[in-house]
């Protein structure tokens, strides 16, 4: 049975070029970039080259890139770092209810430390309104954190407009671009963001590596203490192999970006059209157009997400319910709750499909075929 992976928003396979690069670095380099000898210098050179590429990919300068262990650490650092560094100026933070838990749970921790957090709602399309942000802004607002594209339903947020608005306000502006980076054209100057989180494994790079863009002159209180790596902002010996792999992944992503966007949008259309043709009852959670190209979240009335996902897996198809779930957890998706309310059937019958490397048109047709068969079987009982 051919296995089909349509859960690229959870994680993605490493690109062969990334594996090649990492294998080479792993075999040839082991130095500590902080060492003064030749071994160290070679490793340092690799890290610097990578940092330059990462910076260039978002229109930043290398000194504005802090390499982290991934998106979660980048988000944690952004929020906690800004809050702690600015607590004398104010204690108010604005975010949205549909952020990734790396942001939401950090906000909850900050609330315990005396910060006040405003969680902005979203509309049925999963989009935050600019006027809500405007209204929530106060003199003591020190941080606004709004994600670029939602990981569960793909909804794109008006980051540029919010960035524009915040030019008039001293609050630091952070965006979690983990799911958008690599497919959306991101320029931090155009967006006017101060902080931006990225993860490598969502763009066919290695796991355990990511970065936080920190605009020059934005102050962050460190969350990790130790050596003087990353210009004293993030202690810990650099994961040189992963950093080199990250660089390669970024390079490939940039080369193939436009082609991928086109292809994934086509996949969405194929899946939606095939299901319509099979006369399956479904609706799209969020917008088909104003969304990340690779994320499609569908609701199938009369089905149950647990039975759907298991059946799909047994048919060789890997999809998910939005965010990775734990042992029989029934906590409904906070994103779908925000969009449709706690009582909505959609919380129990929605599936996320996310496309990426190695997916083919043929595969998407087969996904549609299997989904149609399973939905029919479950709903006809």
């Amino acid at each position, binding site marked *: 049975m051919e296995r089909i992976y349509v859960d690229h928003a959870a994680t993605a396979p490493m690109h062969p070029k990334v594996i090649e690069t990492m294998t080479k670095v792993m075999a040839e380099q082991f130095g500590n970039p902080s060492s003064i000898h030749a071994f160290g210098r070679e490793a340092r050179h690799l890290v610097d080259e990578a940092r330059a590429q990462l910076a260039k990919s978002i229109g930043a300068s290398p000194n504005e890139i802090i390499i982290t262990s991934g998106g979660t650490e980048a988000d944690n650092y952004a929020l906690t770092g800004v809050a702690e560094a600015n607590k004398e100026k104010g204690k108010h933070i604005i975010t949205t209810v549909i952020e990734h838990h790396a942001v939401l749970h950090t906000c909850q921790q900050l609330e315990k430390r005396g910060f006040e957090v405003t969680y902005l709602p979203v509309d049925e399309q999963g989009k935050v309104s600019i006027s809500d942000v405007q209204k929530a802004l106060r003199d003591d607002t020190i941080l606004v954190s709004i994600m670029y594209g939602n990981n569960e339903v793909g909804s794109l947020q008006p980051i540029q407009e919010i960035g524009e608005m915040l030019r008039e306000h001293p609050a630091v502006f952070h965006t979690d671009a983990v799911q958008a980076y690599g497919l959306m054209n991101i320029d931090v100057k155009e967006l006017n963001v101060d902080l931006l989180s990225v993860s490598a494994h969502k763009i066919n790079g290695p796991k355990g590596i990511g970065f936080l863009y920190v605009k020059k002159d934005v102050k962050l209180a460190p969350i990790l203490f130790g050596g003087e790596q990353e210009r004293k902002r993030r202690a810990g010996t650099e994961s040189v192999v992963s950093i080199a792999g990250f660089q390669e992944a970024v390079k490939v992503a940039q080369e193939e970006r436009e082609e991928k966007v086109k292809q994934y949008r086509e996949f969405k259309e194929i899946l939606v059209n095939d299901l319509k043709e099979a006369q399956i009852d479904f609706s799209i959670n969020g917008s088909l157009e104003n969304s990340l190209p690779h994320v499609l979240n569908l609701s199938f009335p009369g089905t149950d997400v647990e039975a759907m996902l*298991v059946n799909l897996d*047994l048919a060789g198809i890997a999809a998910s319910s939005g965010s990775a779930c734990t*042992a029989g*957890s*029934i906590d409904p998706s906070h994103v779908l709750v925000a969009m449709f309310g706690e009582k909505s059937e959609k919380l129990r019958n929605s599936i996320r499909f996310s496309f990426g490397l190695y997916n083919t048109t043929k595969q998407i047709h087969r996904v549609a075929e299997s989904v149609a068969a399973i939905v029919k079987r479950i709903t006809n009982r």
Partner: protein
Amino acid sequence: MKKDPKDTRVVVGMSGGVDSSVAALLLKQQGYDVIGIFMKNWDDTDEFGVCTATEDYDDVIRVCNQIGIPYYAVNFEKQYWDKVFTYFLEEYKAGRTPNPDVMCNKEIKFKAFLEHAMNLGADYLATGHYARVVERDGEVKMLRGIDENKDQTYFLNQLSQEQLEKVMFPIGDIEKSKVRELAKEAGLATATKKDSTGICFIGERNFKEFLGNYLPAQPGNMETLEGEVVGKHDGLMYYTIGQRHGLGIGGQGEPWFAIGKDLKRNVLFVGQSFHNDKLYSDSIIATDIGWVSNKAKPQVFECTAKFRYRQPDNKVTVHLLEDGKAKVVFDEPIRAVTPGQAVVFYDGDECLGGGTIDEIFKDGERLTYVG
């Protein structure tokens, strides 16, 4: 015609214990298309967000990966609350001693979960129960597990023909010690894991404390049947008929036992001596009788019965009544037959079915003090 094992999909209900682990192992060895599923029925998340269910699921994951079968989790918290826990509380409120395991098997494991398994294209649902299913005389029969000490048919008595047709008990024909041995041989992560004890959702916690979280405890008097106040109780729900521990009555003479309850007056009746005459009854009315077989039964017949788990069999005569009720007359008086518990009938090795103990009689008179 039965399908070949490799074309037969079996969903195994896995708890993270050794019994269900070995059940899955044996099926896999027999060549079935096996899927392990962990059922989460109860949320016991503590203040740090940790729950024992997560640890049990971790064990399910380890074992399934060792055996080489896919694993999933399914959540029945809502169904469990509605069908089992609500009943559990109602029975305690009524002064009875419920059996949530019987209800869980009837409503959750072999109903909601069975349905889920069928939704996944399964041919059978298997569990790690000590019981056996055999086809005989054109129907499915449920037999006691080979390991007499571990036999769990008492808890499975409400299962019907239609349910049992889709059920497998892979460890029913081996001894518990052998189950452990097989687990060790296969190096399963759960090979030496301690057996769970008590009611599943309470686990190792203090029963009194747990129940007190859901039902208000009303302390009252302990009296003899003659009306003499001999002590105080913490709340009627904390006591079951025949119980000795926790009464806290000191003094001279033989130990004291709970022998009944007066809900209206909030009084716990107690009496002295293990073999107190008032603890004995000779017949009952049982309700919600269910039979494994769909074949008609004679109006009156003899068989054996258990009135609590692990009790030796008692000879009885069953008189079928209307509305799923039966009068059960014992050959010899039996101690501490308790309303709310299950009465389960057997013919030799075969579990015939069972019901709920409702009214208790002695010498033709209803023992109203018992309940």
